[in-house]
């Protein structure tokens, strides 16, 4: 399939130049050297071809052959993606391990998806049907509960001249024939799509449904909508990965694509070892069954790290096109940006800010634009939600990647070093974070939960921002100088911080809070505040409020009340009322 297009004249890390054909295309996949290391054309100048290579180039010499493939970098799409773990250019890591052992060898050519598995295909279209790109022609149960919908590739349409009968097929065997004009095209389950091209859809729909993550500070305070994009910047050790793991575990998406982009090997191993044993609360199946992992860790080749983001988002779009809600986690987009910078530097391109190429902002925009809630060509609604971690140098948010990311996301979860040091987790700073989806998803809360969530949320935010103002004063003169009403604000804010915002990802009960639990918890804290306020106004000193046993209960309720036993909340409410009524009568 591949032909000789040139011979290498220059090698500098992952970037190589060859002299040869003028008929090579930009972004064409090439193979370099006798080992046929895979790369991608990133520059053309006369007969000079510049490529980034996805593997270590140690040992490569000028004069080595370069082969063209005529194809852009693409991913394979078919049943078998779920439960898989790939590297940044979709090489299957488990098979690589079988071939080359514990260490990743070079020049390994392995099909991303296993060819020999047979999948039960059930046709849903029939001969004579006029179908166009995206139409569903059959289904395969990819896991016990997950229906993989086999679609006509987006750029094809025609009339079905043959559809395979219900039976087991490999992903390469024909399952339909499509008459396109006078031509007949054979279709298999296996399809390919170039990773740098977004997969088309019929239309974009508004975002109105929150992605429920079970993380209180996110869902209640800074929700991201399904089809939206969120950024989670923070210094090292502030909780980006733990938060993204939590979302991957608990979010109410049907498919999770998790991209470990230039991060730690052990973190991917942790997911691999943990997810098969965790049960998806919605499907009752192991979490791994809805997950696709892309792992291009920090010590793996940097050009493949750059590609990993695109590999992941293309897989996400593919499941979206079937009509599913997909959540994609990218940890960390900064490492991807650095890969861009590294390649750009070796090309000696003119840098813009901090060594990053001028096209950084454009690339970020293209990536985040691939999030969306859409009507697919088959009339379903599907979505891709993107959550991108950002790792700003020195934790300084004014750096280019954070700043440009901010332009393309509508939800900003700002992690805070000082909160993390004080072990306030998730260390999402409630004053620096924002969500522009609040109004969009308010209707959903009203319908699904039946409470005025937004009003409650805003009230709580008000208490928290008052606290921040008041604590400036406290720092100077101590708390005693404040009137008791304001000290109550501090007290309630503490309940909100410790009882609500802090959520321990390692605690069985606390790791996931249903929206019902979240709203009840918030309601109870606000109820406490209201009742206490009245009592303080009647002259009770703050210490009597502070010493109420209910304070301790409110801080502990997150672990005391499991999602399945919310009736226990009634009891807590009763305790609040009893203890407050007692005080009411004392301070009338």
């Amino acid at each position, binding site marked *: 399939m591949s032909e000789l297009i040139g011979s290498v*004249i*220059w*090698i*500098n890390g992952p970037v190589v130049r060859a002299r040869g054909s003028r008929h090579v295309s930009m972004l064409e996949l090439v193979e370099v050297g006798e080992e046929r290391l895979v790369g991608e054309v990133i520059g053309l100048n006369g007969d000079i071809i510049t490529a980034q290579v996805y593997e*270590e*180039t*140690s*040992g*490569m*010499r*000028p*004069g080595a052959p370069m082969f063209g493939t005529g194809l852009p970098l693409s991913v394979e799409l078919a049943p078998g993606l779920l439960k898989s*773990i790939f590297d940044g250019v979709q090489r299957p*890591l*488990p098979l*690589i*391990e079988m071939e*080359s*052992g*514990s*260490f*990743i*060898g070079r020049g390994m050519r392995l099909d991303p998806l296993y060819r020999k598995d047979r999948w039960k295909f059930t046709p849903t279209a029939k001969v004579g049907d006029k179908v166009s790109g995206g139409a569903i022609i059959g289904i395969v149960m990819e896991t016990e509960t997950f229906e993989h919908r086999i679609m006509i590739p987006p750029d094809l349409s025609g009339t079905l001249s043959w559809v395979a009968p219900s039976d087991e097929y490999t992903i390469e065997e024909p399952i339909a024939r499509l008459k396109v004009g006078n031509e007949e095209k054979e279709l298999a389950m296996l399809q390919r799509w170039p990773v740098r091209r977004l997969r088309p859809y019929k239309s974009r729909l508004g975002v109105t449904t929150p992605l429920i993550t079970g993380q209180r500070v996110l869902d209640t305070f800074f929700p991201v909508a399904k089809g939206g994009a969120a950024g989670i910047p923070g*210094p090292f*050790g502030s909780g980006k990965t733990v938060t993204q793991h939590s979302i991957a575990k608990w979010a109410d998406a049907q498919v999770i694509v998790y991209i*470990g982009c*230039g991060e*730690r*090997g*052990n973190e991917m*191993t*942790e997911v*691999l*070892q943990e997810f098969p044993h965790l049960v998806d609360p919605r499907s009752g199946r192991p979490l791994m069954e809805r997950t696709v992992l892309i*792992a291009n*860790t*920090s*010590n793996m080749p*940097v050009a493949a790290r750059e590609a990993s983001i695109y590999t992941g988002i293309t897989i996400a779009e593919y499941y979206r096109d079937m009509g599913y809600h997909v959540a994609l986690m990218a940890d960390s987009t900064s*490492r991807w940006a*650095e890969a861009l910078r*590294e390649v750009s*530097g070796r090309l000696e391109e003119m840098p813009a800010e901090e*060594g990053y190429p001028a096209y950084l902002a454009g690339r970020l925009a293209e990536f985040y634009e691939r999030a969306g809630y859409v009507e697919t060509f088959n009339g379903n609604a599907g979505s891709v939600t993107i959550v991108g971690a950002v*790792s700003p*140098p*020195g*934790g*300084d948010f004014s750096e280019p990647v954070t700043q440009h990311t901010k332009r393309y996301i509508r939800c900003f979860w700002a992690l805070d070093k000082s909160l993390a*040091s*004080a*072990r306030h987790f998730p260390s999402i700073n409630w004053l620096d974070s924002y969500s522009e989806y609040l109004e969009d998803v308010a209707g959903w809360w009203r319908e699904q939960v039946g409470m005025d969530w937004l009003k409650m949320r805003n009230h709580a935010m008000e208490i928290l921002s008052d606290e921040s103002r008041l604590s400036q004063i*406290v*720092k100077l*003169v101590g708390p*005693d100088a404040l009137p008791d009403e304001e000290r109550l604000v501090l007290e309630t804010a503490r309940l909100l911080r410790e009882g609500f915002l802090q959520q321990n990802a*390692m605690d069985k009960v606390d790791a996931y809070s249903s929206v019902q639990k979240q709203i009840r918890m918030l309601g109870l804290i606000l109820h406490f505040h209201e009742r206490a306020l009245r009592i303080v106004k009647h002259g009770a000193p703050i210490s009597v409020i502070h010493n109420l046993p209910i*304070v*301790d209960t409110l801080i*502990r309720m997150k672990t005391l009340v499991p999602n399945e036993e919310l009736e226990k909340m009634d009891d807590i409410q009763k305790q609040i009322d009893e203890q407050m009524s007692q005080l009411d009568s004392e301070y009338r």
Partner: protein
Amino acid sequence: MSAVISQGGQEVIGVSRIEGPIVIVEGAANVSYDEVVEIRDSQNRLRRGRVLEVGEKNAVIQVFAGSTGLSIDGTRVRFLGDTLRIPVAEEMLGRVFDGVGNPIDGGPQPLTDKYADVNGQPINPTARVYPRDYIQTGISAIDGMNTLLRGQKLPIFSGAGMPHDQLAAQIVRQATLGAIAGEPPSQAEQFAIVFAAMGVKHDVADFFRRSFMESGALTRVAMFLNLADDPPVERLVTPRAALTLAEYLAYEKGMHVLVILTDMTNYCEALRQISNIRGEVPSRKGYPGYLYSDLASLYERTGRIRTSEGSITQIPILTMPNDDITHPVPDLTGYITEGQITLGRDLDHAGIYPPIAVLPSLSRLMKDGIGSGRTRDDHPHWGGQLYAAYAHMQDVRALASVIGEEELGEVDQKYLKFGRAFEREFVNQSLTENRTIEQTLNIGWKLISMLPKEELTRVSLDEIRQFYKGEDA
């Protein structure tokens, strides 16, 4: 101009440019990227180098020993046709090598036919075993609050003049595989130690050597020394050589290996130097944009794999320029390693040893190595409570410095007392004090018990009943 002679590897006589430790050679054919070269000056003195970039007509070479004494016409460069390899063998334990792996203890070259590429290869994430076994270091601030696991990379962030070397040496001396609290630590095999010095002073290297000797560890230690007056470029090879041996010992010989790398700041400066000479576009503070990837290629060579019983645990040491944790070296290190032990100048001044500042310290793997069946059930909550209380104490301390201690409320005064005791009794211990995990946990409870029960929201009510010994217990 240079002439090409071919004999036992291609040799080129004469180079076209010399700039710092970089030389550019023209007219060599068939040079491969990353290949090792031998360079001889006009006096026939040998040094080695590595190809950094290769084009049709020229090759850019980094000379490990620097270019002093090299001349344009009198330099001969022989291309060896392979990437840099060092011998690896079990008998290298007990030996001392220079920064690129040559013996400098007067002994012979290690007897082995196994030579391994110093760059190593990335571990496949599917082949890793997630670390779960904790290492008891006998140091409370580590075992209790920043537990180190076998297969973890946990650096020490220090500053000039702080006792990071003493701390590292104490860890090496005391480290054993941890046991459940109350049970005797298992007498499992001891760690093999691979020690790499990059640009440190002679007395630092001597200190470590003496300390290994005194604890009888010397036969289990392989030392790779690139000292302050050794060529800076060699520093780029030193940790790689050390890790290459560590990988052999851990993954082929099934040993538990503890790797100490010091000082990573010197390593990074050498990298910066090369990058600047080559005119690369810098990112922060002149460091190259690939510093992260480069450091990752070292730090990620840590862990456990399924096909071997062994493990590599890394303790890199770095001195933060100006004690600035946001400096690129600690910053990028923190982004790669699995936590960090941060030393605090204040504690050091207050005479606390080890001056571990617990709040900016972190062990990310701790959660998987402690608690029920590993240390003790209460350990996770206990740690959370100590962290929360100590963090709150910092606020109180700041307030006290403004309004005066006597103006503080009763509870806050208790916090202040707690904070002092925490630093003096928990963090502080002697250079030879080796505490069991049980002792560490018990000291912690004693301190927690200085606070009123209502303040303890991180520990469970059951744990309070069982361990709390405060006034209102």
